[in-house]
């Protein structure tokens, strides 16, 4: 398969250590870390360097490129942002290069890459990434979610205003309410209610643990 048009982000001679330095801080902000099995990490990154040489980017070694750029961008490592719910369900990325920070022994997660179904706590960002009185958008699987912070409390609700479908995370906070940026509809971030009947938005459970914010979503298969 030809990848002549791929734009190169990595300098010739990129090493495993370069990839670690590049990926480590990024996945840290998403609630992940490198697998505790360092030889496995080196093995996977060596594969990624092979792929980098052939294609110009670090595609996931366990996934095949389809030739569709929009689909293939979802398998450029680290691809956690695109697959937050699936990875949270199996506590690692597909190949196990990255594992949830809470996992102590990454070797126990080797092998399975089929996503599970059911409720899953998905790490979305660190506490310090959202100051009090602000709201931000996160994409979790197919869900567009607005996560709001009031003091030290966090709340999650659908990011889509039921009036004209504006992104609520582009609005602003007023106490426990988020104001839609387009027409000013007010939603209570605690329960998704508005002043208008029968147009409340969905809310999601939020937990905070060890400085990470988790949103619980349901994965259906």
């Amino acid at each position, binding site marked *: *398969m030809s990848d002549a048009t791929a734009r190169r982000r990595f300098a010739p001679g990129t090493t495993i250590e370069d990839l670690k330095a590049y990926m480590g801080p990024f996945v840290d902000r998403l609630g992940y870390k490198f697998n505790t099995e360092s030889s496995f990490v080196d093995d996977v990154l060596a594969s990624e360097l*092979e792929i980098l040489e052939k294609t110009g980017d670090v595609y996931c070694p*366990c*996934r095949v490129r389809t030739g569709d750029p929009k689909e293939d961008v979802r398998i450029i490592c680290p691809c956690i942002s695109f697959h937050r719910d699936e990875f949270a369900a199996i506590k690692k990325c597909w*190949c196990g290069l990255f594992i949830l920070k809470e996992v102590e022994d990454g070797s126990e997660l*080797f*092998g399975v*890459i089929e996503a599970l179904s059911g409720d899953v706590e998905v790490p979305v960002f660190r506490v310090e990434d959202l100051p009090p009185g602000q709201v931000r958008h996160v994409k979790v699987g197919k869900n567009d979610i607005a996560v709001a912070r009031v003091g030290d409390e966090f709340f999650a609700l659908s990011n889509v205003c039921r009036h004209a479908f504006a992104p609520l995370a582009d609005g602003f906070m007023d106490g426990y309410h988020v104001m839609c940026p387009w027409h000013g509809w007010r939603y209570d971030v605690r329960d998704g209610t508005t002043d208008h009947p029968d147009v409340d938005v969905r809310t999601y459970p939020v937990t905070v643990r060890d400085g990470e914010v988790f949103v619980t979503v349901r994965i259906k298969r």
Partner: protein
Amino acid sequence: MHKVFVYALSTCPYCRAARAYLDENDVEYDVVEVDKLEGDEYKAAVEEVRRVSGGTAFPVIVIDDESVIVGFNKKRIKEELGL
């Protein structure tokens, strides 16, 4: 004897582990390394993997044209092959 077919990628650590596990257990299998194919053969193999497994994750292990195991799921391989 079971009929075992493996779709693999040459770069994939789980594909290597799965094949090593099958080898260790003297399981005979056919394999195609999809990323080593080119042109129409490559496209056809990708489509076949998608049809069989519902995605593009590897390895894909097809047992007796019925069971499909995605990834190196040792427990399932063991169960399906009676190892």
